[in-house]
């Protein structure tokens, strides 16, 4: 039996004149993501995207899983394709819906006839197919008011489609329609979630990771690559820049007052990330900060770090509790990776009592004890680039 996927567009249907653009981006994204699974035809008609497998080896289960992670799709369902003949439609419906019907208690049938040459009218189609299903599955009741499942029969120009189970899509808007941003990622729980949330709003991601060997390990870097791989299921390909950060951290450690270590470190991170962002045509930075979570994430500390940025810094988690963040990280399957215990650049040399209310002028005075410009330039010259995709 031939099966296809129908995807309903999300809020992009609300767009005005740009709508076509959004749809085009989405269709392209779907094509690109499905490429590794097999050959599919992807077409957008009347805010529904039809995904049809073209070869026998194209795995429809895998395709559905892939579609469930693409932003811009509000809901999707799998449909069976039948010849436009009422008897064949009935047979196909009984066979195709058997699995779903074993899990529900009641149903109704709706028909949509866009091909008006089909001999039966919509209510007649619904009655025919409904009657057949009721005979075949006597334990599932007909309920036209609050059914567990609505079986839809669509008579299109090319064929008839039958579907019943609707799955929630990833929501959001298509990646790429919201510009491009660089995310600072350490390997903790928060940053992958922040990346996911920006991707949901259509933002394409570039990642910046700070490594401080020998204080941090190769495993910490591999861990970040694995996290990005999981995020890339939603965001698409991510280019990751690994910044050698040891010298800068050692300098801060040696020359600056202990309480300012973290804040000065973060200012350097922002400067470097912004430089990388500009080189990659990103228009914003993204961090996984949540207000008050740790000492460097107070309003005062954020103000001090943002003082070195000329681009906007997005912090999608700023108002979220740890529990909420963990909830999302479990959903996107990054939690288990995030909690692997390796030292990362943020835990090295952490002061016992960092400043929670830093004064910008003091921070700048402390920072000026280091001749940092050549160190930053040196770090930027020795970036490691890794392209990550699922």
């Amino acid at each position, binding site marked *: 039996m031939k099966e296809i996927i129908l995807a309903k567009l999300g809020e992009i249907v609300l767009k005005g004149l740009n709508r076509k653009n959004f749809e085009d981006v989405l269709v392209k994204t779907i094509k690109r993501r499905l490429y590794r699974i097999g050959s599919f035809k992807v077409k957008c008609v009347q805010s529904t995207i039809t995904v049809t497998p073209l070869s026998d080896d194209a795995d429809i289960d895998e395709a559905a899983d892939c579609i469930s992670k693409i932003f811009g799709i509000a809901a999707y369902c799998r449909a069976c394709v039948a010849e436009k003949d009422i008897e064949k439609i009935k047979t196909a419906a009984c066979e195709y819906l058997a699995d779903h019907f074993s899990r529900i208690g009641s149903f109704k049938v709706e028909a949509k006839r866009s091909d008006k040459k089909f001999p039966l009218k919509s209510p007649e189609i619904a009655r025919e197919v409904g009657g057949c299903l009721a005979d075949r599955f006597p334990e599932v009741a007909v309920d036209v008011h609050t059914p567990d499942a609505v079986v839809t029969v669509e008579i299109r120009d090319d064929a008839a489609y039958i579907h019943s189970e609707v799955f929630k899509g990833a929501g959001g808007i298509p990646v790429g329609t919201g510009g491009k941003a660089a995310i600072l990622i350490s390997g903790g729980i928060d940053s992958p979630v922040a990346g996911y949330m920006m991707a949901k709003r259509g933002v394409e991601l570039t990642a910046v990771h700070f490594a401080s*060997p*020998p*204080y*941090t*390990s*190769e495993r910490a870097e591999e861990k970040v690559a694995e996290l990005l791989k999981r995020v890339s299921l939603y965001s698409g390909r991510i280019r990751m820049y690994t910044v050698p950060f040891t010298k800068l*951290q*050692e300098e801060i*450690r*040696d020359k600056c007052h*202990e309480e300012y270590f973290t804040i000065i470190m973060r200012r350097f991170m922002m400067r470097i990330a912004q430089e990388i962002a500009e080189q990659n045509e990103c228009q914003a930075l993204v961090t996984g900060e949540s207000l008050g979570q740790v000492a460097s994430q107070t309003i005062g500390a954020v103000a001090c770090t943002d003082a070195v940025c000329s681009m906007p810094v997005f912090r999608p988690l700023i108002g979220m509790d740890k529990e909420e963040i963990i909830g999302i990280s479990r959903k996107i399957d990054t939690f288990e990776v995030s909690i692997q*215990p*390796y*030292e990362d650049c943020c*835990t*090295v*040399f*952490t*002061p*016992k009592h960092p400043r929670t209310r830093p004064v910008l002028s003091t921070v700048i005075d402390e920072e000026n004890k280091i001749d940092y410009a050549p160190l930053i330039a040196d770090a930027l010259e020795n970036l490691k680039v890794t392209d990550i995709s699922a």
Partner: protein
Amino acid sequence: MKEIYLDNSATTRVSRKAAEKAVEIMTQHYGNPSSLHSKGLEAQHDMEAAGDLVAASIGCTREEIFFTSGGTEANNTAVFGAAYALRRRGKRIVTTDIEHSSVREAMSRLEQEGFEIIRLPADINGRVSAEDIKKAITKDTILVSIMAVNNEVGSIQPISGVKRIIEAAASPAVFHADAVQGYLKMPLRPKKYGIDLMTLSGHKIHAPKGVGVLYKRRGVRIIPLHTGGLQQSGVRPGTEPLPLICAMGEAVREYGNTEERTEAVKAVSEYCRAKLKNTEGIEINSPEDALPYIINFSAVGIRSETILHYLADKGIYVSSGSACAKGQKSHVLRAMGLSDDRIDSAVRVSFSDENTEEDIDIFIKELENALRTLARKR
């Protein structure tokens, strides 16, 4: 760059003879020891030969040797198996604060199931006291599990007197000793020490990973962890992984001469300890009389992982004595009462007879470089 491997308590290089034995079994004597035909009989004989070698190394009979998938399974089988077999006789189990996680976690689970677990503390030398053991064992104690050698610091536990204490208390307790770190590195004679169950592991003695042994004294009853066929008297059902078992037998044959090898390692270890003592900023955590195969020390102020990565970069492989800042601190070092600073900076080196004094010289030189150049934690 010369590779200097000082992490032999984590695992060892498989000896060439053991590896060749495994290949021979996989490609030639590949029969299932349970098969009735001659190919099966041949395999059974190979397995018996391996069992004989292990048995001879600890002075027991082949029928008391049960091959497992490794130390963890053997420890789990011993702890759960003995506790369940004797649960009608009592609920009290005596163990220590410094056991390997495969004993510790098994004990935690038994505790949840209603057993009473007595965990004996360790002193600053990483050793539990015979006096404490004596006080803890009562007549309703059903299991005593104490490791022979601690895996983090190398401290040797007073296991030889335990059986007499159990008998004096008129307790039905079975005595289990996790001897993974001591096997072929010190004299281990379960019959002489009154050990009922003893755990051994292959990959710590130059055999491949994936094979271990539970010694079970004849007459000791345990409930097996798995159910299945009648292999190994049903104590450990499942087709035996013959290539691994025979490779372990071969490694035992090769490394069975405990005394001579230990002398060689002892010389290297003492050389290393003396050098460490003379290194400023180093504090040794292993007691003086520890098993020479393990030295645990702290470079206070530098995190374990930092030293480890620094040395690894120079081709020197050691183990961090404690997990990273985010992970859990070493329960052993904590039980010994060491300060947090010392625990956070603990490093373990562990030797095999492949290590030389020259290796130690290079290691010490690089360690000194690390101490000089690495920024210290505050």
